[in-house]
């Protein structure tokens, strides 16, 4: 039994499908961008942006806001789609992605795009930066807040870091993981988009990560595993991790690279290439068919 209504779950599931079409349109603009990892992280980001995160698009720098760090910065087409539809900027701007003079850079730029907290793109930064953010929010929460929260939650914000699986090969991920455990950062939750495929092939063949849950447990983290395309499971798990106060949490989300378009799924070649017209039309048709199932 899930804590969230079927209507909410259905709405977020539909949005995640719609945002995949945005991603296809964005990548098509300059025939460049990352589809596979944007699709695998769709339900994770949409669950965060459209339900879980305490954020205010009209006040993106609100000091007590929740922080979202997309550590796997190349999946920014999906981040931008979420930010735009959540109200941080006009969705009409999405197709300027990777164009000259666009606010939507090839990798996230916190100085250009409202709602982006830190640059990303070079991989591996999310955990250590998230730990620093969580430390700052812990310091803030020990002092009275100058602005009240828009939700029922009175405390300072929490930090959510979305990781790719390939990027946790980077040593600084584990440096940051140790620091987060040392400082008992219960206000930090990471979500691992565990799609098992990176730029040139299977993660297991590049640098094996298993036993992945045991590794994080050994580093002092609270670990939960979920189906990463199941919105109900994601929402419930995010709630539960918020109740863990003495250690950071990581949600290991089993996902499918390219999820939502049959011929892109499980195929590393869709990590960073643009579809041709025929592929684009076929992909949109598949997604629209799926979206229709979720219309109420």
């Amino acid at each position: 039994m899930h804590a969230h209504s079927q209507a909410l779950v259905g709405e977020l599931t539909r949005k995640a499908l719609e945002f995949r079409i945005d991603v296809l349109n964005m990548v098509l603009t300059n025939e460049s961008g990352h589809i596979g990892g944007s699709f695998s992280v769709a339900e994770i980001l949409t669950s965060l942006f459209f339900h879980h995160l305490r954020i205010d698009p009209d006040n993106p720098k609100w000091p007590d806001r929740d922080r979202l760090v997309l550590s796997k910065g190349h999946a920014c087409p999906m981040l931008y789609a979420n930010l735009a539809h959540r109200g941080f900027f006009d969705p009409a701007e999405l197709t300027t992605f990777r164009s000259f003079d666009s606010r939507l850079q090839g990798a996230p730029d916190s100085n250009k795009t409202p709602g982006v907290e830190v640059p990303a793109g070079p991989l591996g930064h999310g955990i250590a930066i998230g730990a620093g953010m969580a430390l700052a929010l812990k310091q803030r929460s020990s002092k009275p807040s100058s602005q009240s929260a828009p939700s029922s939650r009175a405390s300072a914000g929490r930090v959510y870091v979305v990781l790719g699986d390939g990027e946790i090969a980077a040593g600084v991920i584990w440096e940051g993981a140790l620091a987060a455990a040392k400082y008992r950062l219960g206000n930090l939750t990471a979500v691992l988009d565990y799609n098992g495929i990176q730029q040139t092939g299977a993660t297991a063949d590049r640098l094996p990560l298993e036993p992945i849950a045991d590794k994080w447990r050994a580093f002092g983290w609270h670990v939960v595993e979920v189906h990463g395309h199941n919105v109900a499971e994601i929402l419930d798990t995010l709630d539960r991790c918020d109740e863990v106060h003495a250690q950071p949490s990581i949600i290991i989300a089993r996902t499918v690279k390219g999820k939502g378009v049959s011929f892109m799924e499980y195929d590393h070649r869709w990590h960073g290439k643009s579809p041709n017209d025929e592929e684009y039309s076929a992909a949109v048709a598949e997604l629209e068919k799926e979206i229709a199932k979720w219309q109420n």
Partner: protein
Amino acid sequence: MAELVSMRKAYGDALVALGHSHSDVMVLSADVSNSDFSFMFQEAFPERFFDVGIAEQSLVDVAVGLANGGYIPFANTFAAFFASRALEMVRTHLCYGNANVKLMAAYSGLSPSFDGPTHHCITDLAIMRALPRMTVIVPADTVSLTKLLPAVADYEGPVYFRINRNEVPVIYGDDFKPVIGKAHQVRQGADVTIVACGLMVSKAIEAAATLETSGISARILDIHTVKPFDREAVIEAARETGAMVTAEEHSIIGGLGSAVAEVTGEECPVPLRRVGVNDRFAETGPYEAILQGYGLTTQAIADAATSVVKAKGAGAAR
């Protein structure tokens, strides 16, 4: 001979004072707090001090997160590690991301002399100066350090602050008022300008006294802010004295000497010599011996000044 005072002790004192005046300053360390004296802040403000272990990349990234939360993090480790191991973090998040993080680069130049070339840092000015948005500061003595540190805290944006490990001569009195981005004229002079930073300012002062006895009047500019570079002060000095010498505890490639050469080359070409480490690694040994052995001496500055003054005369005669 000027009084010698420990730069790292002065840094520890200045950091504690900063903790009192700035409640939003947080201090981070990568397990060298008893080397760089940031332990003094830890003792005074334990709840505002974070040791992330021997993990310099994490050190910089955690500081970025603290800055995102509105604090002013002062990250502490050796210059060599900021300017090499953690450099990608510095470039991407401090500079591209414009994070308000202050890098306290201890054991700079050849000052960790006994630790040898692995710990010396003679390429950091070149590296940090090339990064857009970075501010690079090199205090010449303990007074300069003490006056500049609160200015760094109040200065918005990423700063690289280069600190000598050792006892260095005190140059300035309490009336010294350094301004970030502005060169300080230490000494008036008409025949040649010695542009120096850090410890080499004190050696420039000694060199100028020597030169005076042989009838050469040397001006001295202390470039405590290597970036943003005070172009106007350097151009004016080049125009008025017609000959330049640079002196830095750094490779002659890419640092202060290069900055002066770039600006004078474009605006006012004059004879120029660079005193610094000549594109090589140094070695282990006592500080003064290493400085002597690798050409960072009063005599080297005086010889360079004599040579550019001669070159200027030769040019004028043609």
